[in-house]
């Protein structure tokens, strides 16, 4: 009888311990990380760059087989994007506790460099344009999502 009660208590204790650990894990997962406040300039610049990139992909998709699609025809776009990203990075680095956004922008910069490299190697096929466009939109959305989350 005593042994039965002891077992029951042990199970209850173990159950409570598991609950406590789960609650602690949940709290840890929800822990707030200090970050810089929302920056409307970053928001606007990223939105502008996204539109610029979308225009580029629309142009590339429209050119399939009906016009020159060589890299040389698009150097203005790559130059403008590099300048825009440089400006975004300088501003992002100047803001305190903004490391995540800086990391995201560095990755986006790397993606633009890869896109330029890919284009230098040859014209992009329709499938390539669609895939790359989707990837860029994912990056832009993620960067904007984080920036907008800073508003809250």
């Amino acid at each position: 009888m005593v042994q039965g009660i002891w077992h029951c208590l042990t199970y209850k204790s173990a159950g409570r311990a598991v609950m406590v650990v789960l609650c602690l894990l949940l709290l840890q997962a929800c822990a707030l990380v200090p970050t810089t406040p929302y920056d409307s300039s970053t928001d606007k610049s990223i939105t502008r760059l996204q539109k610029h990139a979308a225009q580029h992909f629309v142009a590339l998709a429209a050119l399939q087989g009906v016009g020159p699609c060589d890299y040389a025809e698009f150097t203005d776009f790559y130059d403008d994007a590099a300048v825009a990203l440089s400006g975004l990075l300088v501003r992002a680095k100047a803001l305190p506790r903004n490391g995540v956004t800086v990391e995201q922008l560095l990755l986006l910069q790397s993606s633009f460099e890869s896109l330029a490299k890919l284009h230098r190697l040859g014209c992009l096929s329709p499938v390539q344009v669609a895939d790359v466009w989707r990837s860029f939109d994912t990056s832009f959305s993620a960067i904007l999502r984080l920036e907008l989350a800073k508003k809250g």
Partner: protein
Amino acid sequence: MAKKSKNDIQTEVLAIMARHLAQSAIERPIDPEILSQAQTTINQALALQQQMLAGDLSSQQFQAHQGILLNALRVRLLSQGGVGRLWAQTLVNELADLLLK
């Protein structure tokens, strides 16, 4: 230099994906939604690999295109709050399973 086999390339893709994902996710919590995007990325990477094997893409084009895919996933990972590094490990394991099938 000997031409790489399909398995060699798959192993390389796996190594690249795992390294990038682990690097991005290890310090940042990630969301289960990421898994879906990671699977899409893997499918795209494998499709690219097939194009390279068929001779439609050069290895340089493959690397550049794959770099863009991976970067998008890494940017996405960075913007997530939530579940923690356990998910990152699960994610990398799932990717490994997908790639080695």
